[in-house]
């Protein structure tokens, strides 16, 4: 159980305090309830580009990084399909510096042309580094478009195409800021060597006079249930054939999410997992195979991906995956196997919780989902999954009509 306190400023900013006196540091984590799912389909990649611009100077502070580094602090940020998160860690004595910097950029950015121009280029290089200049780099563009027809998860956080980023204007930037960056859409978590009273005072001082803004009214279209299998074939200059299969799974807060998470462990979690043992070690059809999902808030994708051993036929490899899934759907799993994946999950959570930064980040995420105290009930939710759940959900998820398959062939 982790302890925290929560209060809300009069402008709507939610503040969570997580005291931990074992560290000399303090963490200030601000999560904005905006991600790539909130983007205009014609202007994708914007939430992430905007995250870069948050470092380009705010209304009263020309440069974000220098004063923070002067205070001995470090920071970073990330954007996902669901949210944007900014976090600072610095010596606890200097915590006010983080309040000063973060409150000023919540109040208003400097909106500099130069910053936009540079960050457009930087993000384009990021796009190239991760998605163009890499073998198999385009896979997730294709898979998302195949699996989602209406939900905005159909594009990646980096954006659908370079041109969307290249065409971003300062007017877009201002409109985005006005819609999403305000106390009504933000959650602040302060952790480490801090006291609640001190945080309350600092929060009132630095964030109290920021206009509350409007809560973003999210109308994310729900993805209609898939009714037929989808397939696509790609031929590319890659050395090995690869196969990707994705299946729609339940949203983050549902029981089915926890079952899906354990299913990924059963199939693809490490050396004793089913797909690895059967298809890599025994049948030698794949050189590697994985099963995972992205932990998204809305309904995500249970994914199986593998690279084929040179010479193995795609049909044979795919049939072998299907056979494993059929086995799971037919026979389910034993109590022992279920205990194994629960133990792994328990352990993974304990290691993750070691860092105060991760704890703050997770508190913000659960608050964004509806309630920070969900942090403490997550473990129980995994432990409540039964062997029957695994059987029933496997049957539902691994239905051929719920599947999208990408066969990625080597041209070399």
């Amino acid at each position, binding site marked *: 159980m982790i302890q925290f306190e929560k209060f809300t400023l009069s402008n709507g900013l939610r503040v969570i305090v997580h005291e931990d006196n074992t560290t000399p540091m303090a963490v200030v984590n601000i999560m904005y309830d905006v991600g790539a799912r909130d983007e205009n389909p014609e202007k994708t990649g914007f939430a992430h580009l905007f995250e870069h611009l948050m470092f380009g100077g705010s209304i009263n502070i020309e440069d974000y990084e220098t004063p923070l580094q002067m205070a001995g602090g470090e920071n970073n940020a990330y954007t996902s399909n669901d949210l944007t998160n900014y976090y600072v860690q610095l010596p606890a004595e200097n915590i006010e510096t983080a309040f*000063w910097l973060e409150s000023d950029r919540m109040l208003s950015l400097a909106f500099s042309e130069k910053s936009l121009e540079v960050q457009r280029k930087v993000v384009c290089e990021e796009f190239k580094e991760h998605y163009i200049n890499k073998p198999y780099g385009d896979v997730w563009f294709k898979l998302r478009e195949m699996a989602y027809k209406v939900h905005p998860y159909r594009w990646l956080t980096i954006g659908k195409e370079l041109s969307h980023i290249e065409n971003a204007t300062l007017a877009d930037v201002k409109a985005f800021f006005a819609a999403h960056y305000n106390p009504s859409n933000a959650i602040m978590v302060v952790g480490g060597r801090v006291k609640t009273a001190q945080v309350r005072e600092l929060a009132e001082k630095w964030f109290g006079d920021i206009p509350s803004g409007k809560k973003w009214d999210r109308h994310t279209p729900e993805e209609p249930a898939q009714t037929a299998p989808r397939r696509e074939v790609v031929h590319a200059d890659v*050395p090995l054939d690869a196969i990707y299969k994705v299946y729609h799974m339940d949203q983050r807060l549902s029981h089915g999410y926890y079952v899906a998470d354990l299913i990924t462990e059963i199939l693809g979690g490490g050396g004793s997992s089913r797909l690895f043992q059967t298809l890599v070690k025994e049948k030698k059809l794949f050189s590697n195979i994985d099963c995972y999902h992205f932990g998204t808030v809305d309904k995500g994708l249970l994914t199986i991906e593998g690279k084929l051993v040179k010479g193995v036929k795609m049909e044979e490899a795919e049939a072998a995956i299907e056979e494993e899934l059929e086995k799971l759907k037919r026979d389910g799993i034993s109590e022992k196997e279920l205990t194994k994946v629960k133990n792994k999950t*328990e352990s993974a959570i304990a290691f993750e919780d070691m860092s105060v930064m991760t704890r703050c980040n997770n508190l913000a995420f659960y608050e964004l989902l509806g309630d920070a105290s969900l942090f403490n009930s997550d473990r129980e939710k995994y432990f409540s999954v039964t062997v029957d759940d695994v059987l029933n959900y496997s049957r539902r998820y691994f239905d051929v009509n719920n599947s999208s398959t990408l066969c990625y062939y080597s041209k070399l």
Partner: protein
Amino acid sequence: MPNRTIAPPIKDAVDFELVLPRCDHHVLSNGVEVYSLNMGSEDTLQINWVFYAGAWYEKKKSLAAATNFLLKNGTSGRTAFEINEHFDYYGAYVNRSCYTETSEVTLHCLNKHVHALIPVIAEMFTDATFPEEELAIYKQNSLQRLKVNLQKSEFVAGRLIDSYLFGDKHPYGKYNNAEDYEALTREDLVGFYEEYYKKGRMVIFAAGKLPPDMIGELEKYFGSLPVRKHRETVEGIQHMIEPATQKKYRIMNDPNGVQAAIRLLRPFPNRHHPDFQKAQVLNNVLGGFFGSRLMGNIREDKGYTYGIYSYLLNFVHESGWMITTEAGRDVAEDTIKEIYNELELLREEEVDEEELMMTRNFIIGTVLGDLDGPFQVIGRWKNMILSGVDEAYFYQSLQVVRSITAKELQELANKYLQPDDFYELVVI
């Protein structure tokens, strides 16, 4: 309403007192040393078994890495699957990693399970069988991975730049080709295992919330093995550095590539050299963090790259000073020009007081933040012990950060940041 144009007062990070939590030190009956750190609030722990079994000792390329990887793939009593299942059942993670000097096995687990796990780790060090079939799968999968990696410009660049500085026969400069994997035999692995694991030199690092009988358990399973203490020297293994004579390289790996992997590297002495700790400070100014000169110019001003960094290589015998980035293909040559401009600026002008203060504070702040987790702290101890330096070295390095002057930095820049000393590589 607060005055937002004025920064709140800060305590300079250089004024913080930093204390490296002490390690307990034990010696097992066979002389093997154990460094342990009982610290942390979660019920987690980490144990690290380090062997002097890195690439430095192999007679065939990729042998050390293959032996290290396959430690976990079968003993006379258990198949690879059974070993994996055992660790997985207890939610434990067993990682193997092979470096140039050392190779390691690391266990991460909940402390309530550690007693069930240590005996199987011990089996890996006394009774690994290296089944032919496991080796065959390893070779095939390594070859496949290599093929994919060779399509990546940054992978190709990373291999080549080290080979220019150290020569492609030296452990710091050599890299594996397909034929190296193909040439591995089971006998090679068994021989390497006998010499460098079963009768090798070992040292153990344990950290986290340790059970009270931790040392007793380690004594029970490792204290009577015929391994030797890690401080014992091994005769006769020396490697000649053969630096390339050509300094500049342009390589076309993928004609359709949209980015260029850029690497600059110059030789640098190891951490015992008096300039090493000072150079760490200069390196931070140059490219060690987000507020560095290279990042400020090449990313934040020009937008040529998503990131650019510099660092000193973490090798024991020799080091090197590296600058690395992935930049747009059409701006690759401009990027290199700007890098040299930044080196020149550091040679020509003293770093101003504010920038130097920021760099000092940032380094100290980072170290402070790094000292609050048991795994980070033991990591520092491990790095110091394996490099043959002690606690005094840690405090001395902080002293250097606090006291180095702009003039000293400029002198260092003139000594080391000379363009002609750098190997320069662009891979598209």
